[in-house]
C-alpha cells in the first residue's frame, strides 16, 4: 500500500536548476519509471521523495499525507542506490539486516527475513562475505535485498542496473519485473535507459532539464510523444525529423518532396513543421502511396535487422530493413512512409500537432 505524489518540486544547486517544478503522481502498486538523460534531475527527484534533498519549493505526499518536512527515516521508503552504498564494514547479512535492526526487530525475525530475501535473490552463499568480496552483480542483489527485506510504502530505485554488464542487466530486468509483480508494491524507478523504461514500466515520466515532458504508459510515450524532444529521446534508432510545412492537401518538405497531408494533423497551412518518422514505420523494400525520394547513404547491419541510412535532401533518415537488404551508397531510392504512424511537431515550439487521442 503506497502512493507517492510529488508536486512542483524545485531545487537548485548553486546556479544549476536541477528541478524546475517537477510533479509526479505514482499510483499504489505501480512500476513508475522516471526516464531522462543524465543531468535531467531524475536522481534529485528520487532523493527529494526520499527526503535526502531539501527542496526549494514543492511538496511530497506519501499515502495522501504531506511528508515534505519528514526525515528520511519517517517516510517508510526503501531505496536502492546507483552505487549500491553497501556498508563496507558489515557482512552481507548485516547489510540486509540493517533496516530491521533500525526498527528493533527481534533476532529471530531478522534471521527469518534475511534468509527469505537471500533465497529470493539467490545470495544465500554470500551472507558472511563483505561488500569488497562481491562482484557488481552480487552487490546489486544485496542492495536489492536490503531494500526488499521489509515492506515499506514504496521502493525507490536509482539506476540500479546501470553498473551491470549487458547480459546481467537483461536478466535483472526480468527479475525486477517478477519481484514487482509478486510484491505488488509501488516502485519508483529512475533510469536513463529507454529500453528499461519501455520494458518494465506501467507508467513513464520523461524528464528533461528538471521539467516533466510527458507522463504516460510506455506505449503512449512511444507512439504519441508529446513533443519533438521526447520523440527523439525515446526509440532506437532515433526518430528522423524532416522540416516541412502543410499546403492544401499536401505536406511540402523543405527539400522539395511532397507527401499527402495527414488527416490527423491539426497543423495550419504554412506553419513550420517537423515530420517525425520512426525507422520501423519506413521501408525501402515495399511500395506505398506515400514516399520520399532519397539516396542511399550507408548500411548498418545489426544482425536481426539492418538500418538503412537514406539521405533525403540534407537529412539522414534511418529506415529499418531486413538483414538481407543490399545497396551501394549513392544509389537513388524511394522511402515508403506509413503516414498513419508518423508524427508532426511545430518546428518552433517542438510540441506535437496531432489530434489528441489518435
Amino acid at each position, binding site marked *: 500500500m503506497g502512493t507517492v505524489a510529488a508536486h512542483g518540486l524545485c531545487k537548485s544547486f548553486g546556479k544549476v536548476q536541477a528541478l524546475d517544478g517537477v510533479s509526479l503522481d505514482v499510483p499504489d502498486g505501480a512500476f513508475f519509471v522516471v526516464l531522462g538523460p543524465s543531468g535531467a534531475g531524475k536522481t534529485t527527484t528520487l532523493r527529494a521523495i526520499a527526503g535526502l534533498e531539501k527542496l526549494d519549493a514543492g511538496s511530497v505526499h506519501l499515502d495522501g499525507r504531506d511528508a515534505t518536512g519528514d526525515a528520511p527515516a519517517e517516510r517508510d521508503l526503501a531505496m536502492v*542506490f546507483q*552505487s549500491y552504498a553497501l*556498508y563496507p564494514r558489515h557482512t552481507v547479512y548485516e547489510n540486509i539486516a540493517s533496516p530491521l535492526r*533500525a526498527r528493533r526487530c527481534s533476532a529471530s525475525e531478522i534471521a527469518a527475513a534475511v534468509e527469505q530475501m537471500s533465497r529470493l535473490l539467490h545470495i544465500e552463499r554470500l551472507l558472511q562475505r563483505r561488500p569488497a568480496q562481491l562482484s557488481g552483480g552480487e552487490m546489486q542483489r544485496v542492495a536489492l535485498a536490503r531494500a526488499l527485506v521489509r515492506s515499506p510504502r514504496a521502493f525507490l530505485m536509482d539506476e540500479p542496473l546501470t553498473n551491470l554488464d549487458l547480459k546481467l542487466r537483461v536478466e535483472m530486468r526480468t527479475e525486477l519485473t517478477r519481484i514487482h509483480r509478486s510484491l505488488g508494491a509501488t516502485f519508483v524507478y529512475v533510469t536513463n535507459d529507454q529500453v528499461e523504461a519501455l520494458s518494465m514500466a506501467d507508467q513513464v515520466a520523461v524528464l528533461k532539464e528538471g521539467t516533466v515532458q510527458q507522463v504516460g504508459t510506455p506505449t503512449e510515450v512511444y507512439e504519441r510523444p508529446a513533443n519533438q524532444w521526447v520523440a527523439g529521446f525515446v526509440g532506437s534508432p532515433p526518430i528522423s525529423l524532416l522540416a516541412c510545412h502543410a499546403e492544401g492537401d499536401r505536406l511540402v518538405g523543405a527539400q522539395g518532396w511532397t507527401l499527402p497531408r495527414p488527416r490527423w494533423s491539426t497543423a495550419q497551412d504554412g506553419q513550420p513543421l517537423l515530420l517525425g518518422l520512426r525507422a520501423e514505420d519506413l521501408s525501402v523494400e515495399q511500395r506505398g502511396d506515400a514516399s520520399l525520394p532519397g539516396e542511399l547513404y550507408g548500411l548498418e547491419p545489426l544482425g536481426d535487422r539492418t538500418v538503412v541510412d537514406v539521405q533525403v535532401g540534407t537529412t539522414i533518415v534511418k529506415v529499418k530493413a531486413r538483414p538481407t537488404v543490399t545497396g551501394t551508397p549513392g544509389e537513388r531510392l524511394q522511402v515508403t512512409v506509413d503516414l498513419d504512424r508518423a508524427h508532426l511537431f511545430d518546428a518552433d515550439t517542438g510540441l506535437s500537432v496531432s489530434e489528441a487521442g489518435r
Partner: protein
Amino acid sequence: MAVSVDEAVSTGPARDRGRPARRRGGRGRSVLEVALLTVLAVVMLFPVLWMIETSIKENRDVYAVPAEFFGFTVTMEHFKDVFVGPDGGRSALSVAFLNSVLVAGASTVLATLLGVPAAWAYSRFAVKAKKDQLFFILSTRFMPPVVVVIPIFLMYRQVGLIDSKLGLILIYAAYNLPFTIWMMKGFVDEVPSEYEDAAMLDGYTRLQAFRRHTLPLLVPGIAATAVFALIFSWNEFVFAIFLTSSDSVRTAPPAIAGLIGGTTTDWGLVAAASVVFALPVLVFAYLVRKHLIAGVTLGAVRR
C-alpha cells in the same frame, strides 16, 4: 605539520607528484645524492646524539675539553634527577611532565571532539558561504602564537585563566581546532555520503547514520589528526611561557628552558629532561607516519 589546502580537502585521488625521471644522471648522481644526504643526516642528528650523550655523562665529562665521544663513565643520575627531587620527593620537572601530559591530552581530546563533527558538517551540508567560513577558520592559524600572546595574556588576566592548566588547554584546543577541521574535512570527503543516506532510509537518524557508518571509517584519519594536535600541544613553548608561571602549572618546555641560566647550568639534567621530553614525540611521529600513509592512499582506491 605542513598540510596544504589541496591535500586537506582533495576530492580526487591522491597523485604521486614530484618523482620525474629520478634515474637520469646515473651512478655519479646517486653517489653525490648519498654523500649530500649523509652530510645532511650528520648535521641534523649530531645535536640529538650530543643530547643523548650528555644525558648519560657525569658532570665533569660534560665539560671535558676536548669533548669525549667514547670512553666516558655512563651514569643514569641525570634521569633520576628528572623525576626525583633533591629532597627525595617528586621533582619539579616530573610535575611539569605530568602537566604536559594533561594539557596536551585534554586539548587534543577537546579539539577532536569539536573538530570532527564540524568537519563532518562542513563536508556534508550546504552551509552558506562555506568556502569563506573555512578560509576564516584556517586564517586563525596564519599568525604565529607570539603575535597574539599579549592580547590573550590580557584577556586571560581578566577572566582569571592566567597560570592555570585550563587556560593552556583552552588555547591549545583553539589553536588545534582549525587544523583538525581542515584535516578531518579531507578525510570525511573521502567517505561517500551514500552510506549515511542508505542508513537514514533504513530508519536511522542522521547522527546515528554518522556514528554507525561514517565514524568507524574515519578512525585512521582521527588518529592521524589527533597525533598532530598532540605533538603541537606537547611542543608548544610560547603560550606556555607567557601564560604560566608557577611550578605546579608549568608544562615541560618552559620548565626545561628554566633549567638553563643562573650561575651554573646542569647540562646533564637539561639533556636528560630533553630526552624524556622527546621520546613521546618520537613514538607518536612513528604512529603518524603509519597513519599518514593510510591517509594519503585513502583517495587512491577506487570504490
